[in-house]
């Protein structure tokens, strides 16, 4: 079942112009991203939730919380990669569901040139409906944070229906899933 969901998720995200890699350990996440993005350390920014998820494994880059809030936008707007976690992956649509979180500001998935999500395979849902109702249930009325669904890179077809990737948001969207 999980295998099927994984391959469906991979198929869907590819259809939308994103990518998904499945790795087996926390170390391989760092290795994969390290190999893919040979940028300056300061050009890679990740969230506190990523640090927590990686649990000691070292990822090249800076934690967004270590940046002074006043400089944050400027730095993120020039960053090459923004790395976040998510609160659910949706197989039927190839979507990552991001819940607004104190250690993971929304700008991190929005301003850098690329947006990478690190997730675990137990976060995979078959349908969006299942994931959304799960999220809704876990908050009291009036206290649900804002959500962002990301299913691909920023794109447009406004000029003669020609697909162009990378309009105002990230030009690349990728998901690394940690399997057991």
């Amino acid at each position, binding site marked *: 079942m999980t295998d099927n969901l994984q391959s469906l998720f991979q198929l*869907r995200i590819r*259809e*939308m112009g994103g990518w998904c890699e499945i790795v087996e350990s926390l170390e391989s996440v760092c290795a994969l991203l390290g190999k893919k993005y040979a940028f300056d350390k300061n050009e890679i920014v990740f969230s506190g939730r990523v640090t927590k998820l990686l649990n000691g494994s070292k990822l090249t880059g800076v934690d967004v919380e270590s940046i002074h809030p006043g400089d944050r*936008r*400027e730095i993120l*707007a020039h960053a090459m990669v923004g790395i976040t976690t998510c609160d659910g992956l*949706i197989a*039927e*649509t*190839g*979507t990552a569901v991001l819940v*607004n*979180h*104190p250690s993971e*500001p*929304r*700008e991190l998935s*929005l301003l850098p040139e690329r947006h990478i999500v690190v997730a675990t395979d137990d976060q995979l849902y078959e*349908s*969006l*409906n299942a994931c*959304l*109702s799960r999220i*809704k249930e876990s*908050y009291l*009325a*009036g*206290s*649900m*944070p*804002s*959500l*962002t*669904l*990301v*299913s*691909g*890179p*920023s*794109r*447009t*077809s*406004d*000029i*003669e*229906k*020609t697909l*162009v990737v*990378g*309009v*105002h*948001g*990230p030009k690349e*969207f990728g998901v690394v899933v940690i399997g057991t």
Partner: protein
Amino acid sequence: MNLRASQFKANARIAAQDTGLRSKVKKATGTALTKRKQTVDELPEWESLRQQGHDIRKEVVDNIDRYLRSFTDAARLNGAIVHHANEHNDATKIIYDIIRRVSANSVVKSKSMITEELHLNRMLEENGIRVIETDLGEYIIQLAGETPSHITAPALHKSKEDIARLFQEKLNISYTDDPAVLTAVVRKRLRDEFLNTRVGISGVNFACADTGTITIIENEANARLCTVLPEVHIAVMSIEKIIPSFDDLSLFLKLLSCSASGQRMTSYVSMINGPRSSHNPDGPRQLHVVILDGGRRQLAKHPAWKEALYCIRCGACLNVCPVYQSVGGHVYGSVYPGPIGSVLTPTLFDMKEAQDLPFASSLCGACTDICPVKIDLHHHLLWERREVVDRGYKSFTEKIAMAVWRWMMLSAGRVEFAGRLGWLIQKVFGKNIPAPGWTPRRRFPALARRSFRSIMKREKNNDG
């Protein structure tokens, strides 16, 4: 061209002969339809999703006051400031006041049909506020000083060469018609605007009555930038954007994404649950939701026409409409062109002014078949035609012609006589007698000397 609905006939005449326009519109709508079809074909449950969509939209429109109250309460609980506007002018005034109160003199704006309906940009600019449209299509349209010709693809009537020339002239860049380069130019120009503008205006695709969530779907990320970065976010919607529950979102996201762009899900969906607060660590400090009635509550009471309020503005009925494909969107003279525009413009705005629109359809029904919420679009056009006639907007000549026709049709003998007369006229004057409205570009068929009727009669007599 005087782009008013009352001028539809004249404008459509010109547009229909503009083969350049026709081929641009045909190409764009064709691509959109192909993509949609591919995705829908892979969804065996599509028909049942449409029915669910229809039923839920009906439920909302039938109980609009209750849902409006419940959405308002929920959004306020989330910390949003909710404003209700009865008239269009009330809404623009509310928006203007919000901007003034924070002493901003510019706004970044993402695509929204309701702000088009409000003519918001014109009003704000007349009052010294710079409006920066950030959706690529809207940016192009704003630069050209035009209005959108499609509800999801505003610059659909422009070729890449048109856009290249526009950018060359207005942005002082060297000529290029490469969509990727043109897009990059806009990205670069708008980046700083996003980072520095203090007020963002967006539309709303769906507003959940139970959680107060405002949902915005898009592909470019400009709506995210307009709703996350500024200090103040003003979300503008009309009352019928409400859906009963957060749990209905996945259904409507599917219906809308597939129908609008043939995607299972657009690149981005923002579900906004209030401004920055203890549970919402970032985002604007103020979230205003401006809700326009604009005649909709009244329309919701009409047993038939209320259906037009089910619309989720996917634009599929425009794409599939052979009339739209032939003339484009501008000639409708309304914010809402195409089949939904022809249905909505007379009933929501002005039936006298827009009386030609319900007639501007061959009633082929392609729109009704494609509509993700199963609005009986082409039959509504029929009922509206009746209303136009009942209100006496039709010419005297037409009324007389109709009376003569009826008189004839009530007796077989008169029909027979007319047939003979027609044959005789053709016999005497030849087949090419002019019939206005038909012969200038088509030939008339030859009428038979003896009608089917008389053949049948003779056969019967012989048998007997």
